[in-house]
């Protein structure tokens, strides 16, 4: 017996569970303004999240998936992206999206059941949320193919959950990214659950990062409660993608501190005590403690931030609730570049139906 191939999966953390920094601050997050910005965004996210859930509970929003506990994952990724990179999100991300110029009110609009929540700004090349789990890594690979064909030095960041890593499309995307040397970074936000199915039941693989081995690309695990590590590892991976066309798979480990969505009740299946235990590693408190120790943050600043975020979120909610409805015929108006004539009659019937319904 000879050994023909060997692999190792590294794990990265900067700020440990006790908010102690190991080594120096990495280049990408060295700037204190950047550190504070990451923190502020995480706080905004959590306040928004709480509000969104409240809106859902009072019938003002549809099903909504909480980001609670995963703030560092999404905020860290968003901060690592360059403006002209292309982002392909999955449905749980709010923190990256807001750093891509997407309005929080649009995110509410989306979950409120209005397609216009996916419009973003006109020039955005980012994909909207993709609901079918695991379908978006291939879109990311396609975008990366286009960027590479054109010789542009831009990268793609595509995200999905741990459950998504069981989908065939996920592996196919990793594989082609390796085979074609595509400028793409795959992030699996491993929050330990796919609705009621725990990570351990998804796969016998010790890590999700090692799924990269199947594609002959690099894979690494990152502490997803450590926004510094997340931001840094994603930054480096994107750089590698942009400059060397080397795709990377990052498994970012955190914990879903919530039900799967507002339609779910995790108490049915989540063993007691885990959530509380995992809470000790939670990203916002960890970062705050670090910032305070570094004299970059204090109680007063915190209060001001909380107040500011609440006001912002209230404004966002107002904007959301005041959005005028789409016309019924909008159902047809983006179906094709130009609606084929044979569907015009249906479009007309639809308008009549609406008039009758409200007339």
């Amino acid at each position, binding site marked *: 017996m000879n050994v023909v191939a060997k692999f190792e999966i590294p794990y990265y953390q900067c700020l440990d569970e006790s908010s102690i920094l190991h080594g120096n601050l990495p280049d990408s997050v060295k700037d204190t303004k950047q550190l504070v910005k990451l923190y502020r965004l995480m706080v905004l996210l959590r306040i928004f999240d709480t509000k969104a859930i409240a809106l859902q509970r009072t019938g003002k929003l*549809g*099903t909504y998936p909480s980001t609670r506990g995963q703030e560092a994952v999404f905020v860290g990724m968003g901060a690592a992206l360059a403006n002209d990179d292309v982002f392909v999100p999955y*449905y749980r991300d709010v923190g990256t999206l807001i750093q891509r110029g997407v309005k929080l009110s649009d995110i509410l609009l*989306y*979950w*409120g*059941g*209005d*397609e216009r929540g996916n419009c973003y700004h006109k020039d955005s090349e980012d994909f909207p949320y993709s*609901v*079918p*789990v*695991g379908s978006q890594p291939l879109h990311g690979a396609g975008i990366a193919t286009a960027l590479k064909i054109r010789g542009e030095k831009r990268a793609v960041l595509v995200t999905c959950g741990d*459950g*998504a890593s*069981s*989908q*065939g*499309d996920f592996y196919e995307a990793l594989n082609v990214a390796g085979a074609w040397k595509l400028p793409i970074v795959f992030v699996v936000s491993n929050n330990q659950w*796919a*609705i*009621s*199915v725990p990570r351990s*039941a*998804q*796969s016998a693989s010790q890590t999700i990062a090692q799924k990269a081995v199947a594609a002959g690309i690099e894979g690494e695990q990152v502490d997803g409660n450590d926004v510094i590590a997340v931001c840094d590892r994603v930054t480096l991976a994107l750089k590698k993608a942009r400059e060397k066309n080397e795709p990377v798979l990052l498994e970012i480990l955190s914990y879903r501190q919530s039900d799967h969505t507002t*339609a*779910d009740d995790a108490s*049915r*299946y989540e063993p007691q005590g885990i959530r509380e235990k995992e809470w000790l590693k939670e990203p916002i408190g960890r970062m705050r403690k670090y910032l305070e120790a570094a004299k970059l943050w204090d109680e007063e600043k915190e209060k001001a931030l909380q107040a500011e975020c609440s006001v912002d979120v209230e404004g966002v909610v107002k904007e959301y609730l005041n959005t005028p*409805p*789409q016309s*019924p015929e*909008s*159902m*047809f108006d983006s*179906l094709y570049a130009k609606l084929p004539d044979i*569907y015009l009659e*249906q479009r007309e*019937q*639809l308008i009549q*139906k*609406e008039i*009758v*319904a409200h007339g």
Partner: protein
Amino acid sequence: MADITLVEAITQALAYEMRKDKDVVILGEDVGKDGGVFRATLGLLNEFGPERVRDTPLAESMIAGLAIGMAAQGLKPVAEFQFMGFIYPAYDQIVNHAARIRNRTRGRLSCPVVFRTPYGAGIHAPEHHSESTEAIFAHIPGLRVVVPSSPARAYGLLLASIRDPDPVIFLEPSRLYRWAKQEVPDDGKALPLDVCFTLRVGTDVTLVTWGAMVKETLAAADTLAKQGISAEVIDVATIKPLDIETILASVEKTGRCVIIHEAARSCGVGADISAQIAERGLMFLQAPVQRVTGYDTIVPYARLEKLYIPNEKQILAAVTNVMEFA
């Protein structure tokens, strides 16, 4: 005996058959502890254990492919897809293998699988949770396609589907999951898999429908009755094979027919029914068959979905059309 909902009738049928037949095995995403996102498999893990109620990794093609292998070994898998919009990754396994294994082996191997999934719009869910694409299965030889629309029919048709030796696509209208309750004796009696159900007998017009649209259609029949129009209401229920004889017999009697379905109009199952009536019933048709269907567009997100779904008014308007045709 307490009245139960459609989704409870599903659970009751699953439990009944699992008690009776140890080869019945459930698999799907979140079917275990969670009992499925609609609770259709609630309590089954407790009663039958994790070997027979299997939470799968998140992969629909895998769910179908596993079920095919299990079925070839004589098990009777009941595979759940969380929503019909997520069945498409399994389309290859279902069409290229489930539907063909018996034929491919001239009967040596077979595929007694039930592929269950919630189906249809109207529950204010996100995109892809509102599909009614029964036509893409109804076109495929080797499959059966079944759609219950009441607790009793859900129970009897699911039992029949599990017992059937061939693959069945079993589409459960999620809008009706908790709509109406009904007493459903847990007697293990299956309903036939290729006979339409005549829900109302009538003489003036035949209303042909299935799935959640049975609700609006029955409401329309009530309204019509008040107007002195006697509508016969047929719940097709078994889309494939399609019992066209019952429909033809009814249309021969009434001379008029309206077909109602939620799916997009073009190449929907309604087209096939209409075509068959036109081919074989032209002599006794007193008006062109009308279809009341979903639009040829993507089911909109929650805010507009109600406008997408055909409503009673549309059905009544179509009936007026066929009644007044001269």
